């Protein structure tokens, strides 16, 4: 029993102290930035004081010993006898790391195995004003040494220390008590158990609800309704207890950025927005390493040295921004830097050099494909391997880890201006929204996260809808070739489709590649409770789990990635039996052929690449509103800025009054925002080869071509959007 208590106390000490050290670090970071509040200082002191006190009580001599050395120094800082600055913060950072390392050992092994760093203790003492008054070491080297363990200190130690500890240890308990009154710590396993039970309850509830529909007793109906509501509320609240603010991951980053900057001689400021956004703790765990990797990369590869920044007219201090926000039941995390961006030529060179792609392939790649090269295993642009980066293990792992939890990574980069990584992360893994489909007589659930759209083909179109390229079925979806996978075939469910019957396509996305899954019927969307598969089935890559539906039947959850791999949509490096991808990507992503929307503005012919376009809309003039940033319209719950192509390109706008109502709007997607390009008329969609290119000096126009015997200007949509946004911002 006594042993249990000791173990429990030690665990509490570890948790409390590790948290405390994080706030100790934030004090140090504040010092480095040039200002700290008394509150931060007092807090930092209290942290150290508590660690010393509690570890003393529990007989953890080496932790107490080290903590004590820093406490004296912090006491002097607090009393204004010493000032913290410059070198001292580095010593204190080391001090906090050393304490952390000991605590981790304690957590892992139940005892502290390494010993206090005597050199560190000496440095701490050297920084004190009246070192003699506080002398307490029994052994040391004459000059401070970097890392040197000292023999384990026996329990019966020089009397000075023992005396000093006892009274302080008593003082330390009220400080920790204040927090414990409103917060309790619960074992995570306990919460997982409750979560599981709630999952079962949700399923049982679903069954009861369905069952009760067969009876018309109003009393039963009421009771079921209550059970229903309470279950939902219970589920939400239990989910909430599992939620942690993303800050718990981010709080480590200021320190990481600082250390890296020191190491690399760079200067960067870390801004954070949305720290309070909460995620399930399993997800927090899963994104910790990928995020850290991206942030380290941003400092190492992104931010340039101060001199280089000055040359390109940027402020000497680089900025790294972390932003988290909710969108559509997911959390988006953006990591952006204002560094040098990604140089596509260099990426290509390195990829060819490392034999990841052939030189011929490199000629044909689109910009997006080039940027995605960094996600290839074994890719690195670093010329030399440093301990920061350059080993080429990294971005591919980041991508797989994020995809493992149903998230996605997107990268945007502009040479010279910076890079943005956008992570889409599900809120939780335990209960997810899913689309239910039927195929071969069974129902399957498809996680909404990988779902793009549903297509139903019926009537005359059925016969021509599916075309074959090298015996692989494809479907033309808005000018793009979409490879098709028949779920019945993939799962070997049998059952031929009747000719002429409607075809249901579920358009899915796996690792950035789109494909259509043919199913027999699309049923409904539902929140499902994810259950792991039994051991017999868990080896099957096409299933991600199972769920129990309202009627008590089991539905298997499809693993979209697994299906794509199995069907050969995704090409692993080892598996070059790509039946589909080569044909479909080369067909519309190389420079020679393009799918274009032809439009007319001010009697001039323009072409917009279909890949930029999300939708075509007609918007009545009365829906258009004016904002300080220009005209905009409410569109799918967002504010969509409208960009008049005529005025953006500086065309003659005499004809403005004759503009037809409704407006013809081409909705383009840039990142996570929609933009509407206002044009006069839509003429045609063509899949064509581009010849007779003439370069254009006009911003917003990529080049001029002759198409269907007319001069046609190919719009550079991204540039057009950027340009209008900057002018709008200036105007505002």
């Amino acid at each position, binding site marked *: 029993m006594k042993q249990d208590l000791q173990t429990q106390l030690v665990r509490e000490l570890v948790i409390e102290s590790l948290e405390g050290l994080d706030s100790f670090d934030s004090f140090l970071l504040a010092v480095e930035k040039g200002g700290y509040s008394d509150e931060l200082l007092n807090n930092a002191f209290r942290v150290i004081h508590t660690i010393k006190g509690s570890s003393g009580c529990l007989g953890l001599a080496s932790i107490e010993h080290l903590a004590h050395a820093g406490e004296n120094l912090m006491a002097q800082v607090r009393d204004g006898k010493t000032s913290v600055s410059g070198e001292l913060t580095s010593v204190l950072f080391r001090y906090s790391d050393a304490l952390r390392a000991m605590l981790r050992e304690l957590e892992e092994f139940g005892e502290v195995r390494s010993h206090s760093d005597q050199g560190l203790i000496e440095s701490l003492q050297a920084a004190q004003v009246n*070192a*003699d008054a506080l*002398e307490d*070491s*029994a*052994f*040391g*080297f*004459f*000059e401070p*040494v970097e890392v*040197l*363990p*000292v*023999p*384990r200190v*026996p329990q019966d130690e*020089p009397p000075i220390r023992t005396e000093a500890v006892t009274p302080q240890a008593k003082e330390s308990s009220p400080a920790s008590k204040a927090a414990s009154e409103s917060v309790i710590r619960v074992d995570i396993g306990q919460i997982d158990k409750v979560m599981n039970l709630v999952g079962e309850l949700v399923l049982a509830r679903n069954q009861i609800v369905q069952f009760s529909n067969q009876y018309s007793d109003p009393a039963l109906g009421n009771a079921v309704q209550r059970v229903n509501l309470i279950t939902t509320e219970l589920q939400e609240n239990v989910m909430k207890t599992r939620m942690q603010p993303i800050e718990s991951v981010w709080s480590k980053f200021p320190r990481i950025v600082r250390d890296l900057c020191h190491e690399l001689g760079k200067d960067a400021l870390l801004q954070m927005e949305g720290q309070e956004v909460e995620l399930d703790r399993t997800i927090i765990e899963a994104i910790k390493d990928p995020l850290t990797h991206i942030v380290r990369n941003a400092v190492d590869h992104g931010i340039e040295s101060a001199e280089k920044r000055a040359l390109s007219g940027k402020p000497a201090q680089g900025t790294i921004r972390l932003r988290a926000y909710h969108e559509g039941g997911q959390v988006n995390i953006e990591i952006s830097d204002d560094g040098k961006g990604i140089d596509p030529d260099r990426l290509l060179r390195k990829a060819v050099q490392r034999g990841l792609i052939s030189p011929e392939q490199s000629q044909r790649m689109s910009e997006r494909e080039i940027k995605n090269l960094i996600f290839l295993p074994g890719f690195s642009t670093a010329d030399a391997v440093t301990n920061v980066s350059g080993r080429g293990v990294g971005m591919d792992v980041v991508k797989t880890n994020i995809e493992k939890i149903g998230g996605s990574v997107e990268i945007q980069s502009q040479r010279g201006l910076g890079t943005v990584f956008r992570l889409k992360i599900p809120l939780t893994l335990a209960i997810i929204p899913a689309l239910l489909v039927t195929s071969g007589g069974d129902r399957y659930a498809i996680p909404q996260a990988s779902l793009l759209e549903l297509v139903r083909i019926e009537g005359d179109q059925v016969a021509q809808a599916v075309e074959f390229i090298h015996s692989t079925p494809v479907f033309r979806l808005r000018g793009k070739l979409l490879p098709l996978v028949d779920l019945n075939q993939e799962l070997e469910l049998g059952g031929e489709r009747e000719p002429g019957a409607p075809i249901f396509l579920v358009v899915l996305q796996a690792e950035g590649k789109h494909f259509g899954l043919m199913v027999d019927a699309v049923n409904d969307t539902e929140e499902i409770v994810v259950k792991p598969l039994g051991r017999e089935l868990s080896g099957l890559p096409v299933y991600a789990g199972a769920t129990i539906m309202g009627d008590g039947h089991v539905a298997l959850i499809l693993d979209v990635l697994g299906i794509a791999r199995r069907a050969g949509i995704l090409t692993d490096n080892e598996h070059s039996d790509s039946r589909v991808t080569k044909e479909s990507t080369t067909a519309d992503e190389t420079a020679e052929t393009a799918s274009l929307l032809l439009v007319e503005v001010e009697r001039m012919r323009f072409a917009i690449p279909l890949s930029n376009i999300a939708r075509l809309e007609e918007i009545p003039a009365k829906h258009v509103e004016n904002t300080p940033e220009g005209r905009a319209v409410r569109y799918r719950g967002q504010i969509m800025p409208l960009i008049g192509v005529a005025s953006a390109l500086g065309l003659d706008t005499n004809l403005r009054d004759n503009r037809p109502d409704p407006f013809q709007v081409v909705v383009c997607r840039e990142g996570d925002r929609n933009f509407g390009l206002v044009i006069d008329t839509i003429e045609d969609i063509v899949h064509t080869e581009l010849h007779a290119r003439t370069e254009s000096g006009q911003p917003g126009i990529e080049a001029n071509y002759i198409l269907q015997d007319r001069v046609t200007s190919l719009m550079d949509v991204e540039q057009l959007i950027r340009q209008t946004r900057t002018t709008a911002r200036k105007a505002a």
Partner: protein
Amino acid sequence: MRKMISVTLRGAGYDVMEASDGMEAAAILKTTVVDLIVSDINMPRMNGIDLTRQVRSGGINKSTPILLLTTESSPEMKNQGREAGATAWIVKPFQPDQLAGVVGQVLSRTKRL
């Protein structure tokens, strides 16, 4: 004191040569290369600080690590020891196994450098 040290260190597997004071030690150190010198500060005829200075001034043990035994870890002692060129110090009294640990530390550190 000297007996305790030599017994402890022999017990820990070291070969130990003893000297009764600084002069005697200096004489031995002129002719014998050792891995470590353990010396008290307070000794008759030649104290530990002077011994350290002499060893560091030249000869075959010029860079041998020196561990000083001291009764107090005052800044004065540290200054003197550092100036003389000693490597490390340990406060008396200490437990035998503590000394063995310290000797191990000093030796391993010197090897690493």
